[in-house]
């Protein structure tokens, strides 16, 4: 064992650093979560502010995870400088109107660097996806033009996202109580195109495009309370002001963003078994028509040593955007594992998630493979 650790000390950490660099070196537009057709008509697809470890437990561990940019208070116990990044590939089947379309996307939705600056104070910076806005829709239709029915194909695309750049700080007030707060700068852009190709080529192809920039601002706070050895609860809240969309320096839309709050419970009866549950509420209905307030819940467990645990979880709730008068629903189950090496200075987390969203006659089924890399140099 010592021999293996000695071997992994240098090359393994180097490999992990290279892998981390590769993960975070992707273009900004890829720093987004998994897409959904439900988000096309709304603001987009809200991101999942979870590390691979948390997501493998259905998100239940996210409020207690210092590397999940959901809450700040757990940062107080981070102990040493740590960086993590997440990559995920999703295969999504979209079934609507009797047809099923297979889609695929790769995203890098989370990057966090955190570390202590004082004995009782830690800070973190990083970004995660606030809204994914990547989609590509094609449509066949016709219209009467110059007295003739002209058939055409439309393709409207959006490629990009709104990132949540977070600056967080957390401190341990007492042995049982930790608090944290964060500022969130929302920034991002999408490259949007609208194209119409007529079957009659006398009509030239319509092709318009624009770069849409987004900005917004938010604050959040959280409290972590140890009720008893192995039993903790956390509460968090967040408020964002609005999302401003600008095209060529002209504001094209201002959309109110939701307030959100949530809490969680962590129970660790032994060092090799940990259970968690969490819930969150988000007031997405402020975003306008076709948006709904949502409740989400999750429950998960982690077994085994921290060196190579087994994780599983489930979650459910509502998706904030959809047609009709009811919010679409979503449910997911996930499993995962991890492996620490180089004396715990590098970790690889792997996760697999099966997600289903339903609403308005559309069903999305998604397989997502997640890879997380964490280094503690």
């Amino acid at each position: 064992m010592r021999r293996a650790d000695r071997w992994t000390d240098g090359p393994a950490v180097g490999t992990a650093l290279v892998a981390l660099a590769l993960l975070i070196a992707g273009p900004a537009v890829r720093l987004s979560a998994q897409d959904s057709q439900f988000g096309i008509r709304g603001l987009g697809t809200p991101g999942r502010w979870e590390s691979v470890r948390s997501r493998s437990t259905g998100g239940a561990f996210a409020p207690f995870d210092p590397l999940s940019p959901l809450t700040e208070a757990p940062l107080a116990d981070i102990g040493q400088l740590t960086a993590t990044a997440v990559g995920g590939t999703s295969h999504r089947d979209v079934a609507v109107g009797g047809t099923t379309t297979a889609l695929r996307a790769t995203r890098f939705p989370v990057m966090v660097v955190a570390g202590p600056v004082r004995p009782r104070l830690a800070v973190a910076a990083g970004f995660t996806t606030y809204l994914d806005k990547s989609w590509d829709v094609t449509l066949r239709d016709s219209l009467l033009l110059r007295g003739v029915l002209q058939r055409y194909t439309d393709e409207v695309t959006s490629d990009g996202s709104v990132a949540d750049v977070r600056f967080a700080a957390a401190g341990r007030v007492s042995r049982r109580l930790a608090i944290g707060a964060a500022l969130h700068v929302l920034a991002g852009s999408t490259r949007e195109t609208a194209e119409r190709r007529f079957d009659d080529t006398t009509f030239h192809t319509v092709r318009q495009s624009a770069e849409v920039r987004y900005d917004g601002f938010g604050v959040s706070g959280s409290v972590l309370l140890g009720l008893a050895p192995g039993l903790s609860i956390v509460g968090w809240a967040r408020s964002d002001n609005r999302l401003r969309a600008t095209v060529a320096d002209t504001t094209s839309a201002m959309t109110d963003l939701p307030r959100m709050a949530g809490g969680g419970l962590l129970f660790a009866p032994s060092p090799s078994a940990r259970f968690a549950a969490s819930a969150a509420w988000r007031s997405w209905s402020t975003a306008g028509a076709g948006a709904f307030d949502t409740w989400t819940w999750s429950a998960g467990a982690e077994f085994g040593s921290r060196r190579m645990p087994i994780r599983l979880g489930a979650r459910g709730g509502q998706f904030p955007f959809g047609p009709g008068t009811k919010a679409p629903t979503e449910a997911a189950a996930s499993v995962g594992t991890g492996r620490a090496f180089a004396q715990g200075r590098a970790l690889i987390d792997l996760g697999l998630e099966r997600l289903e969203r339903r609403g308005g006659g559309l069903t999305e089924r998604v397989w997502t493979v997640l890879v997380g890399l964490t280094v503690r140099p």
Partner: protein
Amino acid sequence: MTERRLALVGVALLVAACVERLTAPGDCPDFCPSNQITIVDTLLTSSINRDSSYRGYVLAHEAALMLAAHIPGATDTLDGRPVFRINGFGGRFVLSATDTGAILGADSARLKLVILRRDTATHNLRLQFYRLPITIDTGTTFGSVAGPFTDSLVRTVNIDTLLAQPGRKDPVMGDSVVSDDTVSHQLVVSLKLDSAAARYVATDSGTVAYGIRIAADTLASIAFGKGTFGPVLQWYLRVDSLGTPVARTPAALAAAFASFVFAPTPAPLDSTLAVGGVPSARSLLRVAFPKFIRDSSQIIRGTLFLVPAVAARGAPADSFVIEARTVFADFGGKSPIDTRLGDTTVIHVGATDTVKIEVTNLLQLWAADSTHPTIFVLRPQAEAQFFGEIRFYPSVAAAFRPTLQITFVRRFPFGVP
């Protein structure tokens, strides 16, 4: 080792999976973007003003072709006659580096012509060659050479008969024709001229001039090449070499002057918009291009509608192409034409249907460059290479004025959820 492999496999999986496939059929309106592409179609009936016509851009002798036609009409006959002059070698011929001899005359000559355009439905096509005064030049008119075209016939050849000969050669007359019918319908005609038809007159420096009339069973209209496409004359000379006549075959000579004369001449320009004819006519149409289209839309189709004031004139078989272009600056009839973009349409002689020219390219140019003059120039694509001419109603004819139909797309509301 296991950990490193695990890391590498994980990264390799992610990198290999970096292929996006996001395109999905839209199920509208529930799962489509809330905004749609908006198309507007508008007919601009009064945006074209201050239009006018000009003639004289390409004259007959400047044309790339020599036009020949014989089209009897109800009131007159369209008659086109190629004329050309081939300068000779002078009175003496260079026999060697140190010796010259007087040119005594010609045994014969061979004249090569290229028919670049013909109607393959025309039968019994006959070419009649006339000797013309060697003084023909750019000022020569149909009337000024009417006499020689009446009394100076030197040779006649029937093209269809020649084409029907074995090997397309006439062993008696020494004529031949090479046909490239499958590609361009061109004919290369080689005619043997005897000493009577090809007289080498030393006092004229050997210069000869010929004119061609054509005839056929049906409407005859063809075009001869000039410049690199003929006419070319190969002399077979007799030269005095120290008192002994010797035969010499010098290099073939190209025409020093090639043109055509025709009747009737085009009617004078009036208020209509004339395009085509010889000398070629062009028309300028000034467009008040609406600002709301120029500034905030994408033009996907623009059509210029022109109503003929009279049926298009010309040889019935010779449909001709007119093109719409724009100009770099408005100097009236001398406006420099922007040749980068152009749109065309075919004009059928005798037709009176409304002419439509798709001018999308030009309108898009105007929309992209607000400094560009918004003027259409209508001209024949091949100027003075057809007798065809069409005249359209001008903007002052309220009921039949030129109109512009534009289909455009409003700016897509990007960034609006």
